[in-house]
């Protein structure tokens, strides 16, 4: 019984960390229409940044600055934001898909650095013995797990509330205006490149935060935790829940990660050992199918974006607008 309860705590912690990434992606894609094909890269940068800054001193490594955990997390966030800035500056003024290609490139490059720059990242073995926040105050590991879940939930809630406020602010309205019609937004004196840049960098920073929390959760980093499949999983979570809606992002995260975990459980128990790698392929195809089928048959996802009606519209105008929006939806 305790085993199951601990597993649920573990599952929810992973879901909450991924939910933070999905909310970051939702800001980029859902609200601003920017395609990030290298989500896992920004997550990895946040994790490795935190690990290098806060990790224990080691003569064989460049890092291990032994900074307090939360300073490490802030460092990871800043490095992830800087990486976002570099690709965004190169591509945001160009064709929209260039950003997709450049982000894809950065995630591949980060993977190479993680594997090969052993004196910084520990190579294939990764970095171990990383600090976990407030760990010294707990004697029971299981109590600490519950505490850490609460800590991650607080961070997730802060990101959620902050994003909800941001997208409902004038700045958030400009984001959607740009996504819908760049020319119209520009004619109203908005600077689309600048706003897109802000949204993309902020989204990257949020993914970096998730990376830092992940380090605190497992206490080590290695390239195995940042495989390209994670990018696809995060995208599946966003699209299933409904992009352009933070509640959808969180719901999609719960559903897709639940589906992934359940299918993994079925495969490891039912499939003979010799066929596990092929069964793994089946699991990845499940994610691919979820993405393609949702795009084809339910592009708005489960919840979808709320129709926004101007608060300036008078009482008489509102029903007509609502009917119009319902028809379009």
């Amino acid at each position, binding site marked *: 019984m305790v085993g199951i309860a601990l597993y649920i705590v573990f599952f929810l912690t992973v879901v909450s960390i991924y939910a933070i990434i999905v909310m970051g992606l939702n800001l980029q894609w859902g609200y601003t229409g920017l395609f990030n094909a290298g989500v896992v890269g920004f997550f990895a940068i946040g994790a490795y940044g935190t690990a290098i800054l806060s990790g224990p001193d080691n003569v064989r490594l460049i890092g291990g600055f032994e900074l307090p955990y939360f300073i490490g997390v802030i460092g990871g966030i800043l490095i992830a934001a800087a990486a976002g800035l570099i690709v965004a500056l190169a591509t945001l003024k160009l064709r929209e898909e260039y950003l*997709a290609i450049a982000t894809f490139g950065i995630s591949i490059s980060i993977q190479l650095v993680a594997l090969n720059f052993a004196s910084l990242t520990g190579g294939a073995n990764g970095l171990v013995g990383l600090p976990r926040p407030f760990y010294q105050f707990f004697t029971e590991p299981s109590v600490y797990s519950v505490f850490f879940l609460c800590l991650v939930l607080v961070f997730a809630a802060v990101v959620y509330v902050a994003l909800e406020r941001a997208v409902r602010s004038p700045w958030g309205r400009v984001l959607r205006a740009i996504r819908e019609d760049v020319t119209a937004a520009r004619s109203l004196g908005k600077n689309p490149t600048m706003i897109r840049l802000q949204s993309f960098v902020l989204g990257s920073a949020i993914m970096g935060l998730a990376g830092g929390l992940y380090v605190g959760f497992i206490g080590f980093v290695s390239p195995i935790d940042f495989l390209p499949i994670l990018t696809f999983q995060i995208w599946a979570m966003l699209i299933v829940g409904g992009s352009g809606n933070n509640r959808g992002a969180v719901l999609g995260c719960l559903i897709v990660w639940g589906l992934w975990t359940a299918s993994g459980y079925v495969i490891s128990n039912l499939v003979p050992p010799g066929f596990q790698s092929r069964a793994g392929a089946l699991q990845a195809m499940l994610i691919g199918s979820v993405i393609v089928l949702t795009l084809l048959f339910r592009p708005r996802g489960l919840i979808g974006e709320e129709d926004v009606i101007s608060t300036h519209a008078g009482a008489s105008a509102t029903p007509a607008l609502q009917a119009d929006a319902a028809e379009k939806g």
Partner: protein
Amino acid sequence: MPQALADGLLTGAIYALGAIGLTLTMGILRFANFAHAEMMTWGAYMALGVLTVFSLPSAPLGPLTFGWPLIGATVIAILLTIGLALLIDKLIFARLRGRVNHLTLVFASFGVALLVRNLISLIFGGEATYYTNTLQMAIRIAPGLRVMPDQVFIFCLSIVLVIAIHLFLQKTRLGLAMRAVSESPTLAEINGISLSRVVKWVWIIGGALAAIAGVLYGVSVQLRPEFGFQLLLPLFAAAIIGGVGNVVGAVLGGFFIGIVESMSVLVIPAGYKLAMPFIVMLLVLYVRPTGLFSGTSGGK
């Protein structure tokens, strides 16, 4: 140094073939097809499948490691790759085209790439394989420069195909139609060009070249379900630095990336070789966003 150059030209030849299809989809269908490199993997594995199913011998031709069986299998693989490309277009891309934001197509291709790659692992398993176990001796053609007969064949075949595609686009009515759509779909349609016919031919040409490039990669390196995924970045880099929609540019871009990648090993650790295309592409985007040989619809 000459050895690195020769290796770079060889890799570049394969990149060039893959990049042609990619630049055509980006120029004419106007979306970055993340599933394009998986067409290469698919083609390479279909040829392997034909060889395995009919248990054909390798029957090497002269100094090469392969013979008529692989060439025949490649022809079938080309047809199967074109079939897959047209099927995916009909089932997925055609339904989304024009209906949604074109980035949604990019997104769909992202999902398709994952599906195709894992379908291949599911059928063939994840281990690395080869078309043949024959070992080939390199021939010394100059001091410090060795090449394999297969490599010479691959290089020559790529050059012939590239010239053929160039002549096709420049000299035939269909090629003209494709270039017209690449410049302006609306104007092309007003002039009576059938968009759906052009779209179909983009998939046919892109699919065929991808299958050939995949088989050639399999001959010169090895077959692994992830190899297409790893080639995606060099292919995008080749298409972008060549100028999107510009076939000759994509070919030169492919050779350029191949040479830079292989020369880079002289200066940086070999583990980072795969990041070179990204760095070159980022530099080009910062300095000259339309690509080095400006394309029809590159940059803005």
